[in-house]
């Protein structure tokens, strides 16, 4: 193609892009438009009306927009009065902090007690003595079959599972036992602990008080081991072997209880505590009852 075939100036003037964006807006101009400091002569094409619109949106307030100041001031007065009514340092945050600290200390102390009890099998002496003192008065008011001398003890395993299977849950304290089973001399403490669990979980500490008859009858180790052996969860078979069911109505069946027998309302007290002497920090006793009272 020679130079005479076309005008070079015309060729160069051909548009490289079809249509330039008529509303193109660079970031700087956009920021200045939003800030409202773009003079009209510098407003990009197509944005003059937008600038006017934004100026109208940010116009000085009308009287209607300033209604309600008195209500806001009334709220301020009330809030100021309330703030001044509370002396410095006695407001809610301080009280909450103190209560939280007390709860934390109590939880720590009770957890440590529970761990110690679970590890050693006995409560620490001061706590046990305190528990004995407390529950000595309770025992006077509520007759505990196992703790009362001369009362006929009943089989522990059969009683517990029988109650669970019938949905009785907590066996009423002091109620004559309907379950007929082979009497076992050393089952009194175990049964007592079950009855306590059914009556009041807080009274599990009473197992410690019922340790005395156990000691007197067959020695501390024997009583503890029999309680452990009479667990209805299948971990100990001695309870079943020593106390077979006798009434044929499902009572006294020392085999596997329902897996959730200990968690259903009204049935959960059939399972005796694994350690009736020191209390179980997971099932009851001081580690659990303390924080609940708080």
């Amino acid at each position, binding site marked *: 193609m020679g130079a005479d075939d076309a005008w070079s100036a015309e060729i160069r003037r051909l548009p490289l892009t079809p249509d330039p964006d008529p*509303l193109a*807006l660079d*970031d700087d101009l*956009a920021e200045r*438009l*939003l*800030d*409202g400091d773009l003079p009209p002569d510098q407003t990009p094409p*197509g*944005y003059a*009306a*937008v600038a*006017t*619109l*934004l100026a*109208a*949106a*940010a*116009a*000085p*307030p*009308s*009287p*209607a*927009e*300033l209604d*309600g*100041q008195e*209500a*806001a*001031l009334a*709220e*301020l*007065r009330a*809030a*100021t009065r309330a*703030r*001044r009514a509370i002396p410095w340092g006695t407001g809610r945050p301080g009280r909450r902090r103190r209560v939280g600290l007390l709860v934390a200390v109590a939880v720590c102390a009770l957890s440590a007690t529970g761990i110690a009890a679970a590890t050693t099998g006995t409560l620490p002496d001061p706590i046990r003595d305190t528990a004995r003192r407390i529950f000595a008065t309770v025992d006077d008011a509520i007759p505990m079959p196992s703790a009362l001398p001369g009362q006929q003890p009943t089989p522990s395993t059969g009683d517990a599972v029988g109650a669970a299977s019938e949905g009785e849950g907590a066996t009423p304290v002091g109620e004559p036992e309907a379950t007929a089973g082979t009497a076992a001399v050393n089952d009194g403490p175990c049964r007592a602990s079950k009855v306590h669990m059914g009556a009041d979980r807080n009274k599990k500490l009473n197992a410690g008080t019922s340790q005395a008859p156990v000691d007197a009858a067959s020695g501390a180790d024997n009583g503890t081991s029999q309680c452990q052996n009479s667990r209805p969860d299948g971990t100990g078979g001695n309870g079943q072997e020593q106390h077979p069911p006798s009434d044929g109505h499902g009572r006294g069946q020392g085999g596997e209880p329902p897996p959730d027998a200990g968690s259903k309302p009204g049935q959960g007290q059939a399972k005796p505590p694994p350690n009736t002497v020191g209390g179980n920090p997971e099932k009851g006793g001081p580690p659990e009852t303390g924080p609940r009272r708080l």
Partner: protein
Amino acid sequence: MIGPGFPALLTAAAGGDEDAFGVLWHDLQPRLLRYFKVITPEAAEDLASETWLAVIRGIGRFQGDEAAFRAWVFTIARHKARDGWRRAARRPVEELQATSLTEPSAPDDPAATVLEAASTREALALIATLPAGQAEAIVLRVVAGLEVNQVAEIMDKRPNTIRVLTHRGLRRLAEQLRTDQGPRARRAV
């Protein structure tokens, strides 16, 4: 903007000085109302009142300059708006009556004030037609007078996202004003 006197004003307002609090209220209440009229027009006054209640409760603990105070107030406002959206979502839909859409006029009702208020109302109504994020970003920038970073924090987005939102919103406004032959803009002007 209040300016250099803001720290003393804030301290006095936090101590219960009604005059100082009134200055803060005068500066921010119209902006709050306009913000709510764009993002939750049906409950603007109620939400503004709730915002001020929260400001009164927390003003004693606030620390910062005027820009931070303004950003704090609009952060509260946005939370109130979100609460309002949740409440509205749980509420059964009610049909609005046409009369409820008209605002009561000012008691003295001078013509200039009406025209000015009408133009502001029209402008806010047009901004409210934008997609929600674009409208909110533009109002927080233009009406509340906040910086990009503050708007980004309030809207829980990145600053670049806010720039894109406002840029798109401005472009959309320009397109609407051009295609509509600018009737609203002419009324606004």
